[in-house]
């Protein structure tokens, strides 16, 4: 049993989850702030 497979699996899983969470938060924030700004200008 190669231990590196387990290490890589843990890093890929944690990396993907953290990146997805950060990117989704960033996209949602930009979208919401743009909508608020657009409505303010109307």
């Amino acid at each position: 049993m190669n231990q590196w497979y387990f290490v890589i699996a843990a890093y890929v899983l944690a990396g993907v989850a953290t990146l997805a969470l950060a990117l989704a938060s960033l996209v949602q924030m930009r979208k919401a702030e743009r909508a608020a700004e657009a409505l303010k200008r109307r």
Partner: protein
Amino acid sequence: MHIFANPARFLQIARPLTGWCGWIGAVLVVAGLGAGLFLTPPDYLQGETVRIMYLHVPSAWLGMAGWGGIAVASIMELVWRHPLAGIAARAVALPGAVFTAICLATGSIWGRPTWGTWWEWDGRLTSMLVLLFVYIAYIALAEAEADRGGQGRIAAIFGIVGIVNLPIIHFSVLWWRTLHQGESIGLTGSTIAGSILWPLPVALLGFTLLFMAIVLMRMRTMLARQKVEARLRRMGADA
């Protein structure tokens, strides 16, 4: 703390802080994990799998600290009626749940080669799984309350009650001696060798800053959505 209760003042501070926390956090995470993967020696007993610690420990800390944050914000929401406290608590919930899930998953991946099993109904593992369920319940409750036009008090009470699980998680390795090892890092020192331990505080600080950036982004999203809703309501009333 009362100074930040004003959303406009909060946004003034949160806008630059989001970028700083995000970028510094990302750099520290890459540095800490890179050092943990390539610069530290394997453990004499666990071998290479000890490297999972650099992910597992920060995610466990953030899962628990996240709920601590929810409880503090909930108290502020109930006692001082801070408009931002409820938003802060709801903003912490999802990242807290995600990091608790990462902690459970990385622990499970580490457990297979080390313990010979993916899962064991051990005190630490079970109480951490309970924390994940408590997070999911809080998210559902807060959403349901918001949909019904509630003021978030039920979710706030749940946020305070849920803190009961944190000392159970912390002391579980002392109360029930099963599979999970006892405390490796305490206030007075660590049983982990320095040559293996040093990237851990770097990764821990990096993940904490990244978590803060995510929470700030989620708070800014919620505030912007509230602003849109309020403006649309006003426009509807004027028409």
